[in-house]
């Protein structure tokens, strides 16, 4: 069996998220080096603050300012930081209960080694040099010798000039994509300008592109069958919207094409004929461009149209 194909696949998206009043106050506060919490009806102070009480689900809006110093409640030494994490040298993950708060905040602690970290140790916020209104405005925590200030958290109106109303949460995940055995065979055959499908051992239908299973019978397909190159347009649409990065003149036609010998239509662009003359039953063949790894489009073969009965099962 030839080796399956593999290729890097990066999924990346800048999620834009809007903030409610509490989150906006907290993140704007970080930008201004002010840490805010929220007070529950029971009088507990939650840092980081949430909009609804995690116990009663009551809406909570009473903001208070807590200290930028606190105590580690638990920790974990991270010898090999991964992409995106707060520090690029070994550090401790910590949950820190800030002075004045009743709950803990997750962040990183910059310390020389695991021996320098313990639960109960005193730490303080190290602010990022450039702050935008995000959790990363806290660059990390650092060890701090002092005691708590002892001052009670003071009420805060949460109002700042130019409050941040949203964040951009960048997400990126890296994969090595493999299409599996069946689709590898299909892609490899395309390199030789051939289309191969797989026949179901049960119902004898030929699927193109093959995915290794018959969707009707739910059994593995393995017998490889060459199909095409010509085929019949079973249905089509006329596209009037320009896709980004696509250099095709509008309008153009996109259709389902049942390659000869296949029992499933695949889709492709139909060209070489005025868009308003494309029709069901039109006989077409693939057109390859120099170095192309799949047909660029399909064009009319010039044969008479296929009889409807020959392709009606595939519409």
């Amino acid at each position, binding site marked *: 069996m030839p080796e399956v194909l593999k290729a890097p696949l990066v999924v990346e998206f800048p999620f834009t*998220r809007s903030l409610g009043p509490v989150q906006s106050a907290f993140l704007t506060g970080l930008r201004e080096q002010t840490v805010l919490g929220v007070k529950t009806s029971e009088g507990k102070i939650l840092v980081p603050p949430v909009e609804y009480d995690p116990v009663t689900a009551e809406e909570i809006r009473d903001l208070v300012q807590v200290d930028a110093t606190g105590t580690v*409640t*638990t920790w974990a030494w991270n010898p090999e930081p991964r992409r995106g994490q707060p520090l690029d040298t070994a550090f401790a*993950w910590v949950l820190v209960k800030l002075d004045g708060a009743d*709950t803990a905040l*997750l962040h990183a602690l910059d310390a020389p080694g695991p021996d320098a970290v313990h639960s109960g140790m005193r730490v303080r916020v190290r602010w990022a040099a450039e702050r935008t209104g995000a959790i990363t405005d806290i660059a990390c925590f650092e060890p701090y010798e002092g005691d708590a200030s002892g001052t009670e958290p003071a009420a805060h109106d949460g109002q700042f000039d130019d409050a941040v109303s949203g964040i951009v949460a960048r997400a990126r995940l890296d994969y090595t994509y493999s299409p599996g055995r069946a689709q590898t065979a299909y892609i490899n055959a395309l390199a030789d300008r051939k289309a191969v499908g797989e026949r179901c051992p049960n119902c004898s239908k030929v699927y193109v592109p093959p995915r*290794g*299973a018959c969707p009707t019978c739910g059994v*593995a397909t393995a017998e490889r069958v060459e199909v095409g190159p010509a085929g019949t347009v079973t249905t089509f649409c006329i596209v009037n919207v320009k896709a980004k990065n696509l250099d095709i003149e509008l309008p153009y036609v996109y259709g389902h094409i049942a390659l000869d010998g296949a029992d499933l239509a695949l889709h492709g662009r139909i060209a070489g004929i005025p868009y308003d003359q494309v029709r069901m039953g039109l006989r077409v063949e693939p057109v390859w461009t120099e170095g192309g790894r799949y047909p660029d489009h399909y064009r009319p073969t010039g044969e008479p149209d296929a009889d409807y009965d020959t392709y009606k099962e595939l519409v």
Partner: protein
Amino acid sequence: MREVAIVAFAQSDHVRTSDEQSEVEMVMPVLHQVLEQTGLKTSDIGFTCSGSSDYLAGRAFSFTMTLDGVGAWPPISESHVEMDGAWAMYEAWVKLLTGEVDTALVYSYGKSSPGSVRDVLTRQLDPYYVAPLWPDAVALAALQAQALIDAGETDEPALAGIAARSRESASTNSHAQLTGSVPQGDYLVQPLRKGDCPPVSDGAVAVILAAGDKARELCERPAWIRGMDHRIEAHSLGVRDLTDSPSTRLAAERAGVFERPVDTAELHAPFTSQEVVLRKALGLGDDVTLNPSGGALAANPVMAAGLLRIGEAAARIHRGESDRAVAHATSGPCLQQNLVAVLEGEAR
């Protein structure tokens, strides 16, 4: 309440990488096996439900591809949860309880090998305060482990003992990935060593549920679901007591775990330290056979590992090795959400 049982269970071998197989190619043999055990055909199944995650596949609606392995034409009654298959089974159980159908096929799969599961799981975290810091799954479990050590509930040698016992148990499980003596290795994130963490696995699992006499017809000794419940806790880690799992305890209470002793527990604890928490929450003594399959420390196909626990517990009842078992599945960081099921075999 209508009687519902697990009547068949099948799983793939769990492996570090399966890139020669697409998802459907991995799932299909397991579906065939579970149907074969009962003699049912796809067309006999009243309801089909699956669990998986697009984040593992790196593409949208990835579960639709595996439907080809079920045979979804002519049309079937089907549903999917973007969760572990244990929750798909919960949905199927409810469907059977309504009386609408008599049988259900439940399957789930996880193909973690294309990406980095440690990083993928960060995307389930709070996007405002936590996810931008990219704390990976091992880091969060390590914070929980340290909290347990600080509280005097365990220590590193005890955790190593859990790892060793799990992989030793797995040596009789032909589907497991890590078996026998596995070195504890270096710290991945202290206090968790490599041996405290689950392997990265690809794998699939399927069960068939049936109601009443249909279950007796399909299986010599059905594993009756006497109760099932799932509960969740606050998302923010700093709000929770990481040394305890009140959601597991409450789910167990509602599922009826505490009514009578259990002889077997299959717990979904991907990290050694989480077994400590779960054992306490469920009040399990040393007389209970714990994770005889090796558990998630021996094979951890994400999104399938929870349903695997339920399937393994059911299989012990089928084989007559257990009369009353508790099965558990978890989701979210540090045991945030927990599902508990009680399974019983009829007296012999």
